[in-house]
């Protein structure tokens, strides 16, 4: 057990509990936000675990998650657009908190890894995670109504 694994446990435990609570209670708008939070919590946790266990392969999992998670949320946003347009699924405080968690994890790991290819890879994962998170949140909040028929 080291600090990285502890931080990953906190991110997984806290994020996982919030996701579980969110997806099992409340209206669809709230549930779809909660499932989007799953990516934002698990991806930084995987990055922290890769450093904690010394297994760079975990970064690939985080990369895949950061890429596919927001895509899945966009599918939900498309399929649930009628439900979402009535209630409006806006959660900007949560979105930026999750983005901050991802950014903090990536910055800490970059400091630990030092300059090099591994650091660039971490930055790519972080950029994908945060931009995907923000785009998915904006889609859920109805920010892309113009492309609804697309």
């Amino acid at each position, binding site marked *: 057990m080291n600090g990285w694994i502890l931080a990953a446990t906190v991110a997984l435990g806290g994020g996982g509990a919030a996701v579980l609570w969110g997806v099992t209670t409340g209206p669809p708008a709230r549930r779809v936000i909660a499932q989007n939070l799953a990516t934002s919590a698990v991806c930084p946790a995987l990055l922290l675990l890769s450093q904690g266990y010394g297994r*760079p392969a975990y970064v*690939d999992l985080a990369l895949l998650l950061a890429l596919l998670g927001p895509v899945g949320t966009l599918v939900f946003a498309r399929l649930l657009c009628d439900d979402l347009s009535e209630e409006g699924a806006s959660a900007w405080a949560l979105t930026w908190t999750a983005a901050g968690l991802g950014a903090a994890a990536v910055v800490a790991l970059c400091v630990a890894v030092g300059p090099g*290819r591994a650091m660039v890879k971490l930055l*790519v994962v972080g950029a994908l995670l945060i931009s995907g998170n923000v785009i998915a949140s904006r889609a859920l909040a109805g920010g892309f109504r113009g492309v609804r028929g697309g």
Partner: protein
Amino acid sequence: MTRRTAPRAVLLAAGELLAWWAALALLWLVLISSVDTLERIVGASCAAVGAILARLGRRAVTWR
């Protein structure tokens, strides 16, 4: 009779493909775990295919 394309358009297309190829090849080199000759060859090939697809996709989105 073949249709002549303006040299400027050909240059622009080649430049765009080259830019996509360079970006994708760089991304490949960053994401792999160990850099060796085989990885470079595979990466360059995949980046070439990706560059063509990226240009097709961009054109499809830009001029509908």
